[in-house]
Every structure is written in structure tokens, then in C-alpha cells.
């Protein structure tokens, strides 16, 4: 996966939305899809089951046009959240430039969040990547739910964000926090450019 190619002057970023089932990964992509002007967005590919669960993965290509002379494309992916689709998750993670971990803020989903996060770590490691070097942000989704059902961001931080990553409260169905998350992960990914410098193909 090429992040930046100075010869063809292209920047391609692959960002993967990761998280437990029903945490709102596809909702993130759908919201973004809805905001992108027609000429900028590719066809969103969603392989869903009859009950609207992601069976394989979602894929949303974004063409950001020419930025500083570079043709810039973002590819947003989601992984299937369910535990038994790990092979697919591993496959989608391959070559990811950045990861958004979408956590379900509901109290009762805390264990699933933790399990999914551990699964992410394990899969990234299997690709031979040190998770600490992979640009990543957290999103605490469903913060619009009644207070008594959810954990507040500080509590979720306590449980999930031991690396003090950038974390964003969000309501992916309606939009708040979605672009903030995307902006943050994009910035983290692109900042890697300045660290690795040109020549990375």
C-alpha cells in the first residue's frame, strides 16, 4: 500500500474503521458518504446481510482532488465487527495507514469494546506492525443515548484509552464527531509524511 508516491505525485490513504459489532462503523461511513459532494465520492460498496449487518466490509473511496500538486485519495474501510469474521478483519487491516477504533459507549458493551481492541492489537501484530507506530484515534460513539445507559468519555478513556490517543465523542447516526474523527486520523496519517519524508513508495 503506497501512502505517498512522489513519482506519480499521488497520496493514497487507507483508513480502517475498527470496533465491535454494532458500534457504528458503517454509520460513520454512511454519514461521510452523505456529506461528500457527488463528484468527489466513489460508489460506496457495502456488503450487508439482510439484517443490515456488515458481512464482509464497507468501502468508501474519497477523491480529494489535487492537494499541493498531489492527487489525493482516501479509502475508508470498515471491518465486520462480529467475532467470527476475524479472517476478514485481518485482510482488511492489511496495508492500513490509520485506524479509527469505534467504541460503543453503552455500559453493557464495555467488554465487547475491550475484546475488539485486543483483537485489533493481535491482528496488527500479526501483520508485523507495532501498534504504537500505527496512526490511530478512538471514537466513543452513541454519546447521544441517555446518560444512564452510556459511559462518559472520561470513563471510556479510563477503560480503553491507556495510550492517551486522541478520542472523540460522537453520534455517528446524526453526524456530530464523525468528521472530527476523520480529520484527526487523516492528520495523524499525513503527519507521518513529514516523519518518513519523501521516497516512501
Amino acid at each position, binding site marked *: 500500500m503506497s501512502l505517498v508516491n*512522489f*513519482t506519480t*505525485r499521488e*497520496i493514497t490513504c487507507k483508513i480502517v474503521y475498527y470496533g465491535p459489532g454494532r458500534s457504528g462503523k458503517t454509520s460513520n461511513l454512511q454519514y*461521510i458518504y452523505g*456529506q*461528500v*459532494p457527488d463528484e*468527489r465520492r466513489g460508489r460506496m460498496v457495502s456488503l450487508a446481510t439482510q439484517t443490515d449487518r456488515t458481512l464482509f466490509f464497507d468501502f468508501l473511496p474519497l477523491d*480529494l*482532488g489535487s*492537494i*499541493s500538486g*498531489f492527487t*489525493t485519495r482516501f479509502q475508508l474501510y470498515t471491518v465486520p465487527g462480529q467475532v467470527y469474521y476475524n479472517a476478514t478483519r485481518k485482510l482488511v487491516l492489511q496495508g492500513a495507514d490509520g485506524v479509527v477504533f469505534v467504541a460503543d459507549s453503552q455500559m453493557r458493551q464495555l467488554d465487547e469494546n475491550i475484546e475488539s481492541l485486543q483483537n485489533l492489537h493481535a491482528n496488527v501484530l500479526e501483520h508485523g506492525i507495532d501498534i504504537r507506530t500505527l496512526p490511530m484515534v478512538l471514537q*466513543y460513539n452513541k*454519546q*447521544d443515548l441517555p446518560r444512564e445507559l452510556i459511559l*462518559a*468519555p*472520561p470513563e*471510556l*478513556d*479510563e477503560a480503553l*484509552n491507556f495510550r*492517551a490517543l*486522541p*478520542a*472523540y*465523542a*460522537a*453520534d455517528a447516526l*446524526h*453526524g*456530530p*464527531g*464523525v*468528521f*472530527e474523527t*476523520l*480529520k*484527526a486520523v*487523516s*492528520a495523524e496519517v*499525513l*503527519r507521518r*509524511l*513529514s516523519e518518513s*519524508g*519523501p*521516497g516512501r513508495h
Partner: protein
Amino acid sequence: MDLNPRFKFETFVVGPSNRLAATAAQAVAAAPAVTYNPLVIYGRSGLGKTHLLHAVGFAALEHEPQLRVAYLTLEEYVEQYHAAVASGQADAYRRSVGESDVLLLDDIQFLEKHRELQSELLRLSEEMQAANRQLVLTSDRPPAEIGELDERLITRLSGGLLVDLAPPDYETRLAILRRKAEERGTAFQSGVLETVAEIGAANVRELVGLVNRLIAFQAVSEAPLTPAGARALLVEEGVALAAESALPPQAPAAPAAAAAPAAAPPPDEFSAFLSAVTRTVAQSIDAWRHKVGEAVVRWQGEGYRTARLEALLGGEALPDVDEVLQRYEADVEALRALAAEAGSLDPSTAGHARFRDPDRVDEARGFVQKLQEGMVPPPTPLPALTFESYVGGAANDAVLRAARLVAHEPGRRYNPLFIEGASGVGKTHLLHAIGNALLEAPGVKAVSCLSAQAFIEELLAAIEAGNVEWWRRRYRRSDAFLLDDVQLIGGKEQTQDELFNLFNAFADGEKQLVFAADRSPQLLEDVEPRLVSRFEGGLVVELAAPDRAMREIMVRRLLDAQGVQADDDVVQYLAARPADSARAVQGLVNRALSAMDPEQPSLGVQAVRTAIEGRGARPSQAHAISALIPSGIDSSLQSREKVVWDWPDVGDRLVEDLR
């Protein structure tokens, strides 16, 4: 950047806190480069540094309108400089900045971030001072407190005048408030501005902000503002400000930031996202440009050509910048090493441009190689004169042993070895034999072996050509130094000086020194005692005249060398003849050979005897010679053998003498 007409001395409110700075600035403006150069004004943000800087510019122009005044913030300077470097116009830019009569440079504290510009600024300040051009700088702290600032630059900046701007006191604050209100054409009730002045502000900028707020408030109020109202307003604003700053930052970095989502997102989120990405990409792309730009400035500062790096900035397709930079640095290192090598061979070549261009490493390498090859090595020992061809015997056994030891362990046994002996006894042969043996010793690559006469002549030629240093290095590169006929340096002061220094250099480096002379060190005439004592400090050995056994060997060798078959009688006869040196033996053999019948390859004793002792007296000549010799003189002189019968022509003798 243009000067701001609002920032003049007339609009600068002077109080005790800034009087010194204002006075200094006025003095500089009245007579640039005469009083304080450079002038450095430092103080916290918002106290009027930039105002003073502009004011200096204006006032200087008022005094002398033809002056070239330039105002730049450090960031602008850095940016322009990098751009100039990137476009290959660095020198032109340097010139354009350096030629300003008054250069006003703002915010030099950012030099902390631009270390590569420090040497450039140092150069600029030196150049401007030398050309009597004024430099005025501002900083938010004293130069010594600017992180990682070059010590030389600190000294340079502190060499002019360093003045600080302190926060304004009550009176100054009030004066500033009044002036600002007046500028805005607003009148306040008495006591309002006093109240504001009492509340105070950290700096002038904040103070102006306060007065602006009051003006705005009064403009929309029906009743004029009262002192109490002003206080209430400002305190309230202060509370509001405090509340604002307590809000979580927009870009959440960690826990506290992740607040509950706001009600509705702004409409065009995608555009906002796009511009954020654009910003980040631009910064990231600029990051490597910056890196290359910094490298360009740094290496240019050190005097290297950076065309290769500059090409990188203009190129479309990019290789790995880190790799390019590494390769460039490796080439610079190679150039440094080559320049040092060239300098040791010929100091005049080290500064050549080829050692300053990493794109010309191969050329530089070739040049140094040529220099190495082209450098005439000092005279070396004659290959024919070896220990093997040297005739040893009881008479020179001790000397020979010492010589072999020296050759075996150069610099460690006898250093120097001083060989004395009469002319013709074989000193020169022995010296060259030691030299040849030294060449085979481990770690010895070059051996200098020459006569003192050649040494003197070389020095004279070097003095004439002005390359004495090169000549010295030429010898110092040798691993051993052997000098024949040392007695000839008597009275040659500069030669003795050079020899003394050379001696010390060799002795310090444990390199072998061997000298030969026709007399002992003590008897050397007109030679400085410091040299004599050094000669004596090693081992002084004396080569004696060859004894009969040695002479016999010599005769045999000489005859063999000529391919002459001689009877043993002939050899014994020749060896028995008195001869006090190897050269004398050679003479005897040559005379014997002259008697040889070309038809007969062998030599008979009778013919030899006749050749050496003569065919019998030729009466007339014998008589004539006898008449010349006073009676009572050693009878050996009357021997035919001792008499020269055939004198050369007088003309030939003269030519011989003149030589």
C-alpha cells in the same frame, strides 16, 4: 516588509520603563552605525519593540532620505533566504540584505528554531559592522537566553547595546490610554481612563485592547461611561475571558476533551475536512523541503556548493531525501579528508574550489592522487649500495653491527647513529646500505638519503620558489632520514635550523636518523652546539681504514667485477700495497687494470708491479722531481709510486678547480 507609518517615535509613549530603549533607538536613528551597533532591544511581547524598530526606520529616513532601510521579521528573513537558496539566488539575496544601510530585524528569538541561520546572521552582522551599516534587532528575551544560540553570535550581539523594555508603570499606562483615546477621537469622562490604568494590563497591546473595548461600548451606549461602569465592564469581560479559556480545546488530545457531542454539525463538513487535509499535506510536503532547505543553508554556511541539494528542491520526481542528504554528507566528509591530504602535500592547494563541491569528489580525488604521484620524493638510498656489497672485516666490525641493529629496529636502538671516518673509508656506502635495509623494515615506507650538499641546495631552491613548507613536509613524510657529509652544513645557519627541526620531528616520532661525516660531531666547524649535542646524543661510531684482509676482499671483488682473471700473486700484491681507504684500493686496482694487455684476459703480477711502481726511473724527470723535494723529507715521498709523473694540462686543472 514596509514600515508601518503608525509606528513612529512621535506615537511612542515614553516612560521610565522604556526611556533607555527609546533614547538609544533615537540615537541610532539620528546617526546610524555611529553610536550603538548592533542595537538589541528585548522585552516581553506587546511592549513596543516592533514600534521602536519601525520608528528607527522612519526617523533614519527622515534624517537621510537616501538611506536604504530594510525591515524584516526573522521568519520573513528565513523564508526569503530559503527561497533564495532554493532558486540559486542566495548570494544575490545576501548582497541585497547586507547592502541595507539600516537593517531592522524583528523577533530574533526564533533563531532558536532556525539554527542554520545563526552562522548566516553572524556573517551578516560582521559584514554590516565592517561596512558601517546599522543593525537593529529585537527579541523577547536577552540573546544569552535564546536557546542554543551560537556563543559567537551572543558576543557579537552583546557587543553593541542591549536594552530592555519593561512593562509600563501606571503613569505610562495612563499616557498610552489617553493617546489612544485621542487617536480614536473619543473622549471619556474623567476618571475612566485612570480606572483602566489602575486595572492594569500585562502589556501595551492588551492595554490598547481594553481602550478599544471601552470605545466600542461607549459608541453604542446612550449615557457616557463612568469609572465604575468601566471597571464593571472590564472585570466582566475578564470573567468572560477566563470562562472562555476554561473551555476544552477544540482539538481533543485526551480524556477531558471528549465531551458530549454538540447538537448539530456545521453544514459543509466535507469542505472543512478537505481544507484540514490540505493544510496537513502542505505542511508535510513542506517538511522535507524545509529539511533540504536547512541542509542547503547549513552546508553553504560551511562553504560547500549545494547545487545537488538545490536541484532536489526544483525536481519533480524525488528520490529518498534522507539518502540524498546522507550521500551528500558522505561526499563532504570525503572532500574534507582529501583537502587535508592535499594540504599536507602542498598547503597552497587545500583551499581550492574542487574541495568545496561534493559533485567534484572524483576530480578532487584525482587531483590528490596526482599530487601524491607528482610529489618528487626525497632522494632515496642507491639500490646498489647494500650491506651485501659492503666489505666487512675486523676494522669495521663494530660499526657494521651498530648499522645492522639500526636497520633492524629503526628509531629504537641508536637514534641518531653518527658515522665518522676519513674520506673514502665507505661511510657513504654504509649509509646507503642502512637506508636500503631500513626500506625492508616493517612500517618503513619512505627513506630519505642524501648528501648535505644536496640538502642545502634543495633548501635554497625551495626558498627561491617560496615553497619551503612543502619542502619540509616532503621530508617529514619519510620514515627515516640519512644525511651524508654532515660537515658541509658548517656555517649554513638556515640549513642547520631546518635540520634541527627535522631532527626533533624525527626523534619525537621515533623515526631513524643516521648521519655521516669526515670528523666527529665535536670537530664539526660552525655547527650550532644544539645540533652537535643532538648528534652526540645517539651513538657515534668511527669507520677505520680497511685492513689487509679487507683490502684483499675488495681487490678480488673489484677484479671480479671487471671480469679479469688475476693470479693470486696479483691479489696479494695489491692487497699488500698501502691504502688507507676503499677508494685508494679502487685506485690501485684501476692502475693495475690499465697495465693489462687487451689481448690477454689475465693479469700478471709483473705487469701490475710495473704499472704501479713504474718501469724504472726516467732520469730526467726523476732528477727534476728530486730537485723539487727538499732533503731530509720522508723518503717515502721519493718512492716512484708516490710521484705523479704525468701532470694534467694546466687548462684542465683550472676547469677542475672551478668545478
